[in-house]
């Protein structure tokens, strides 16, 4: 790593950006709260109106924290998938794990209406928990299937195709469920599918953040494995790596991250695919010892930025996060990759 200094600078810069974005996430929103008051509320000083305190602590702060953690988790998950499959188009959703989550949610949302006679949207907190649990069960069962398959099949491509097929299968079942459901439930499901960092509230947010704060450092334990996997199966094996075990570990790690994030925020697209590319382009490295932390903070920053835009004053009631991630993210990534190609040509 010749340009360690430059990389450190980038990371420090990104961290500063995250702090700034976090603060902006507190300040900006449909209700105008002056910057000074926000600062006072955050530091616990002064006498600010109770409504403002509520908005900051019950809405904006959990939302920002959720975005930060979810962005970081998805980006790391995407990086791991791209490395283990040596495929630049792989992402957290590629193995059908988020489709599994959707299937779980669809079962709960669409069945509770037609069988229990209660639309889940009326259940409030219990409904929220039920959704999270359903999503986790759905995604983890798909992951178990993939891990089982990865012990049987040899090639990465085969496994990738199996994953994509499972995704299609899940979507087909969801389609059937939708067909037999009442409109109100379908709407609940569709809104869940748009993704949101705002859904997680209070206690659930604490649980979500705690789980992710434990899982993300765990995923860092795989850096050497990831670096070896990058060389291809033959070389990795020759360098003493147990390929099958390594593959299962990485898929499981990435899968659990995706499953948890999807359970709490819905299927968030694009971040997990784009952030690893952005990191590789900016840091000019393929060393996961740098890429993993880079993906973590880049993902966090990008998710915060998207959350901010989704909630800009003027878009009353918040845009779906998924639209923002793709709308803002795609041009950014494309421009970075283009610029990189140019500098390569000038070398």
């Amino acid at each position, binding site marked *: 790593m010749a340009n360690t200094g430059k990389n450190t600078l980038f990371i420090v810069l990104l961290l500063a950006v995250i702090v700034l974005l976090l603060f902006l996430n507190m300040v900006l929103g449909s209700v105008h709260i002056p910057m000074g008051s926000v600062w006072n509320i955050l530091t616990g000083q002064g006498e600010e109106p109770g409504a403002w305190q509520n908005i900051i602590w019950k809405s904006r702060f959990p939302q920002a924290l959720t975005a930060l953690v979810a962005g970081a988790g998805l980006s790391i998950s995407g990086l791991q998938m791209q490395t283990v499959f040596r495929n630049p188009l792989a992402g957290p959703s590629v193995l059908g794990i988020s489709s599994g989550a959707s299937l779980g949610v669809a079962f709960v949302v669409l069945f509770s209406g037609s069988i229990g006679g209660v639309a889940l949207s009326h259940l409030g907190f219990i409904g929220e928990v039920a959704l999270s649990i359903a999503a986790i069960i759905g995604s983890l069962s798909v992951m178990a299937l993939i891990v089982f398959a990865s012990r049987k099949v040899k090639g990465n491509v085969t496994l990738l195709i199996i994953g994509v097929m499972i995704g299609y299968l899940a979507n087909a079942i969801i389609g059937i469920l939708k067909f037999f459901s009442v409109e109100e439930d379908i709407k609940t499901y569709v809104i869940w599918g748009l993704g949101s960092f705002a859904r997680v509230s209070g206690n659930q947010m604490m649980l979500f953040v705690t789980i992710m704060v434990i899982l993300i450092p765990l995923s860092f334990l795989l850096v050497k494995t990831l670096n070896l996997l990058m060389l291809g199966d*033959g070389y990795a094996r020759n360098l*003493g*790596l*147990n390929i099958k075990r390594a593959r299962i570990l990485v898929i499981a790690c990435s899968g659990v991250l995706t499953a948890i994030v999807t359970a709490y925020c819905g299927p968030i697209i694009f971040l997990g695919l784009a952030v690893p590319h952005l990191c*590789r382009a900016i840091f*000019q490295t393929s060393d996961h010892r740098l890429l993993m932390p880079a993906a973590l903070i880049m993902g966090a920053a990008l998710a915060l930025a998207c959350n901010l835009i989704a909630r800009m004053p003027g878009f009353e009631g918040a845009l779906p996060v998924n639209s923002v991630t793709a709308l803002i993210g795609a041009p950014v990534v494309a421009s970075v990759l283009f610029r990189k190609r140019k500098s390569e040509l000038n070398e």
Partner: protein
Amino acid sequence: MNKIATIQLQHLNIGYRGKTHHKVVAENICASIYSNELTCLLGTNGVGKSTLLRTLSAFQPRLQGDILLMDKNLNQYKEKELSTVISVVLTEKCDIRNMTVRELVGMGRSPYTGFWGNLSNKDREIVEKAIESVNIRPLASRMLHTLSDGERQKAMIAKALAQETPVIYLDEPTAFLDFPSKVEIMQLLHHLTRETDKTIFLSTHDLELALQIADKIWLMDKTNGITSGTPEDLALDGHLSNFFARKGITFDMESGLFRITNNYRRQIRLTGHGYRYAMIRKALQRNEIFAARNIEADIHIETNNPEQEGFILHFPDRPSLKADSIEHLLQFLSE
């Protein structure tokens, strides 16, 4: 330097395990690979060269027989242990982006590095030494994806050297390279067997190079399995000429190399000496004309006329002609 049989194959069957029956690729292989020698495995496509290499590298299980690696059975090695004994250079082209040559060579140290894969100062020294020994110091900071095929191949060999294993297997290391790079890689490997105590075993299709540079040749075919020996011994006992016996290929005993068979349609008397003589002879051979000094023929070509530049053609019934180049000369002859 004493040569030790590092790898011994005893009645080895290689192939693929199926549910009901095994697909045997080659049977009853008995041979040894020695240290301080460059051994080249030759054989036609599909005869099982890669399967043999994969089996020897423990990438796939053997079907029967034993492989002794430094007097210990290959299956008794653990993965970690094996990574310090065998290193490989594979045909699969790894298209890693954003990785420098130095980082790749550093990956060769993985079996020795700790949990995070950080290189110690000693590791760095070994990496630099490996880069030095394949002469790619100027490329060390370049990204892998900006290298040519030959340069990348050298980086891969440096990676194998950094792994510090007594055995190196290479699967067609000279494929896809231009001729000078092929020669360079082969000479580099040969040099390594002399400088270090390494046992180097490679498969190749570059027959000419292998016959000139290899210490031992392994001929692999469907009927005889493996025949091994020095290229010269194999030439003398006729194995080489049998092995590649095919229409259009002749084994030239004088040079110990193969050349294309020529069917001659006519004969020409050729006089002269040195390179000019040899080159004309070669050009005529290609055009199915046999040319020599002691031939009685109508046409006579003088290559080294003291009075005149160029090549002089004497005809029995016509005045002599002068050609400035061989191309020119061939034109006259075809008229």
